[in-house]
């Protein structure tokens, strides 16, 4: 993939220079069948380091399944999932857990633990996976909560939060361990436009601050083209387009154009 525009449009900040040309995640001929349906059908994809990559497609196109392959939550039937050249689909459970320390993941509904407060939810990965003392954990958790604008909500339980706040807490939890790669499974689905843009803005600013590699599934079309460097279009278990956002917008692929414009007529007939 060629490099995207040097300036991030919504933030107006300079895009971070890529450390090298090697993709951080590489899917090679990945195939997966679930409930008798081929969800991923020979997917080949490179995820560039220190860039925001958005994955778009119709519901049921296999986006979440593809994202879960990247962190080894689902293993492919065929093909390879390479993280910095290591095929994680062949690793043992313990080896895979070590690789996952490099990741943070934000699930669709937040996946916060109901019985823990906001503070405890964000502190959870630090308490379970690091040797940090309680003082340092507190410092890190409060700093991440401040970053997502939730300093005052640390004592609340997930059921006391709005949808947008849940996503922000989940985001704080995903980045509290300072991972290299953060995966987002529809971080803005079901939110109103203002909250949605504030979450996307938060993701963009966090990217500029920390230089994480970010992969995000989104249905926010066409807005997502502004908020991401690269866009991957998935259809019927296949990658039909993977390029810088500005190129995908002008794709000549009729399916991509139908998806961008939301046309009910085109190659895909749902009714």
């Amino acid at each position: 993939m060629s490099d995207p525009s040097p300036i991030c449009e919504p933030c107006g900040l300079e895009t971070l220079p890529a450390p090298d040309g090697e993709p951080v995640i590489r899917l090679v001929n990945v195939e997966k069948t679930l409930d008798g349906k081929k969800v991923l059908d020979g997917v080949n994809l490179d995820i560039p380091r220190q860039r925001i990559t958005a994955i778009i497609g119709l519901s049921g196109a296999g986006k979440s399944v593809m994202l879960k392959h990247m962190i080894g939550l689902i293993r492919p039937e065929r093909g390879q999932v390479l993280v910095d050249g290591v095929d994680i689909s062949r690793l043992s459970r313990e080896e895979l857990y070590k690789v996952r320390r490099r990741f943070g993941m934000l699930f669709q509904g937040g996946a916060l633990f109901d019985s823990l407060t906001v503070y405890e939810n964000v502190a959870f990965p630090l308490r379970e996976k690091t040797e940090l003392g309680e003082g340092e954990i507190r410092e890190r958790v409060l700093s991440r909560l401040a970053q997502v604008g939730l300093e005052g909500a640390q004592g609340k339980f997930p059921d006391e939060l709005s949808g947008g706040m849940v996503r922000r807490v989940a985001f704080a939890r995903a980045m509290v361990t300072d991972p290299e790669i953060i995966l987002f499974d529809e971080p803005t689905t079901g939110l109103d436009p203002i909250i949605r843009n504030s979450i996307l803005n938060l993701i963009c600013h966090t990217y500029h601050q920390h230089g994480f590699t970010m992969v995000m599934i989104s249905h926010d079309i066409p807005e997502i083209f502004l908020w991401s460097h690269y866009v991957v279009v998935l259809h019927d278990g296949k990658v039909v387009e993977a390029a810088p956002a500005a190129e995908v917008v002008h794709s000549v692929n009729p399916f991509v154009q139908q998806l961008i414009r939301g046309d009910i007529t085109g190659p895909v007939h749902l009714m």
Partner: protein
Amino acid sequence: MLSLAETIGERILLAIRNMGRMTIFLYAAVATLPFPPYRVRRIVKQVHFIGAKSLFVIVLTAAFTGMVLGLQGYYTLRKFGSEGLLGSAVALSLIRELGPVLSALMVTGRAGSALTAEIGIMRIGEQIESLESMGIDPVKFLIPPRLLGAIVSVPLLTAIFDVVGILGGYVVGVKLLGVNAGVFFGQMEASVEWNDVANGLIKSLVFGLIIAWVCTFKGYFTGRGAEGVSQSTTSAVVLSSVLVLVGDYFLTSVLL
């Protein structure tokens, strides 16, 4: 005819597959027990949830079970002029059988179903996948505290059930029906042996393991959505109860 054979064969294979999965699941949970972190606070929390919070229902059930045993026992023994054996009859029935079995069934209904629902909701809410994504083994994290919580709680609840049940039998037999208190307790002391108490506690230990095992398994591998969790909860309660009763028969055969 062929399709009937196919259906039966399919069901048998499914049952065998499920038994295998349950065994692997139990092994995965138990194999982690000797290794740190021990998560003592989480175990104590489970003892509180499974044990302390079941106390009221156990005391209530035990009191009425003992009272019914007192009533039934008195009128049956009176036919043979053996009312003096009421204390033995009540105590042996409770300590050997009714205490462990009824405690286990009550814990299944109150706490077992909640274990299934809690873990099932964690599954459908992607919390289990979230643990996986953090590099935390969900089986190791979620199951051992619940297994240990049940193994500690059920014998304690059974002991309480036995004591309260005997007191219920005492109230009806001695206070209401006029059996001599000295005879009631004297006969009980003469007939109840340490073996009876130990066997009852062994049974309750096994029942605690069965309840936590079945209920966490059903929650962990729940179906999709709210309906999946509700089906898992129902099937966890049914399977645990059946296994407790079947297990009781085999344990009694071995321990007698």
